């Protein structure tokens, strides 16, 4: 049975904060951050935007591109995030209700640092493939925070991507050709219960975490599928900053031409669970029939999920039906000051 993406959508909040604005507050050198991390600005969620609201909007766009799938026929909803609004009460329950999917549905919230989104996609496609459900929805969304003044504050951003999976041949936009996961116990980044901000184990970030897992996962899936880097039209990797995804892509043998379409982080920041999935939506917005796409996520802790997709004849017919990811990224921006950002992100202590 052929399983694939039958609908997809992204949501980018309109607010942005420029790197200079953050650097000025902490007395940091904006230029060295911009060169070092290749970041210009990042998205900022409004006071009324969270993982649930962004998931609903991204998923509505996925339904618009699905050619009229009845939400009641969706048998599974997985929301991957490390910023679920409730500690106990699944985001998916509200997302399912808002989309008209409940109550005959299996719902779970997933967490795995920045790869919770691809975990949801993996489970969704697997259940469809097993014949357990007709359609399944996998969402990656985050409104993550870095501690004030920490390096992560320059990148932690907000956004969502949603993918509807199914096996109706006439609806498939991009067929799932292969999947592969590579996971170890690596203490590169964590957040304990009741802590506001995460910590990172400095010597474990970079090489032993991001690069090692992505490289092994991407090589693993290419070997499994019998493909080489030059067989792909596009490749997208987790993007914690602007620099890492290009470096790992080139190291694996991909060219800038294959990497730039899904490379959103310089102007979006790191949307954590939404990062590589949102890059995939930007690729699906422009991909042509027959194109092969490689997606490899990374989640600290640590692991990488990989997917190979093959674009069908139907994709170009639905691309324009919902807001394109790049259009959202480049237009209608509202730039905020650090003061406003601190207020929006709850960094100011208010009167009880």
């Amino acid at each position, binding site marked *: 049975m052929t399983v694939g993406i039958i609908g997809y959508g992204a949501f980018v909040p309109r607010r942005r904060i420029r790197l200079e604005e953050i650097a000025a507050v902490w007395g940091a050198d904006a230029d060295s951050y911009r060169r070092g991390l290749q970041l210009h600005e990042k998205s900022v969620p409004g006071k009324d935007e969270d993982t*649930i609201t962004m998931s609903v909007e991204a998923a509505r766009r996925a339904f618009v591109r699905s050619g009229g799938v009845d939400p009641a026929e969706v048998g599974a909803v997985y929301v991957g995030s490390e910023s679920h*609004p409730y500690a106990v009460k699944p985001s998916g329950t509200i997302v399912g209700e*808002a989309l*008209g999917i409940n109550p005959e549905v299996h719902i779970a919230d997933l967490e795995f640092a920045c790869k919770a989104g691809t975990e949801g996609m993996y489970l969704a496609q697997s259940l469809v493939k097993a014949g357990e459900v007709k359609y399944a929805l996998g969402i990656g969304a985050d409104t993550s925070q870095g501690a004030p003044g920490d390096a992560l504050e320059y990148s932690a951003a907000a956004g969502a991507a949603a993918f509807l999976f199914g096996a109706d041949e006439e609806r498939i936009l991009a067929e799932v050709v292969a999947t592969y996961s590579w996971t170890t116990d690596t203490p590169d980044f964590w957040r304990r219960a009741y802590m506001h901000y995460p910590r990172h184990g400095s010597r474990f970030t970079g090489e032993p975490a991001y690069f090692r897992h992505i490289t092994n996962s991407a090589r693993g899936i290419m070997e499994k599928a019998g493909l080489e880097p030059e067989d792909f039209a596009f490749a997208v990797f987790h993007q914690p900053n602007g620099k890492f995804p290009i470096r790992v892509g080139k190291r694996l043998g991909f060219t800038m031409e294959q990497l730039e379409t899904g490379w959103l982080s310089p102007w979006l920041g790191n949307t954590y669970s939404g990062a590589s999935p949102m890059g995939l939506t930007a690729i699906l917005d422009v991909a042509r029939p027959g194109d092969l796409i490689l997606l490899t996520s990374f989640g600290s802790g640590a692991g990488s999920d990989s997917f190979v997709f093959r674009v069908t004849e139907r994709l170009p017919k639905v691309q324009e039906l919902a807001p394109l990811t790049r259009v959202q990224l480049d237009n209608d921006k509202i730039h905020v000051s650090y003061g406003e950002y601190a207020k929006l992100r709850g960094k100011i202590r208010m009167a009880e």
Partner: protein
Amino acid sequence: MISPARSWREAPQRYRLEAAKCTGCGRVCYPPRVVCPSCRGRDFEHVVLPREGNVVTHTVVRVPPQGFVEQSPLTIALVQLKDGTRLMVQMADVADPETVHAGMPVRLEFRRINSDGEAGVIYYGHKAVPA
């Protein structure tokens, strides 16, 4: 502050924009009603409102009620949707309230409306954003 019970009861209209259409005269009521204000009819069918419309009129609240202080100034608009239904909604993503005007195209988006402090339930619904 609305109660969790009321929020739950109103989920169809708040989350999915479900309205009641009078089977007698065709009037669409949002929020849904028990008796049609036009013909006193009591039979309704469920319809889902379109999410696109235009601002009819608006007001800017600069001294908002508790729970909305961080969103000040609040822009509240009367919006006419594509099907003719009118509803009062808060506007979101308005960088400058001065730019809001009658006829302005808007879209309804799913947003957080309010929450019962840091520990209480979170209320969701729709707001109008510039289209």
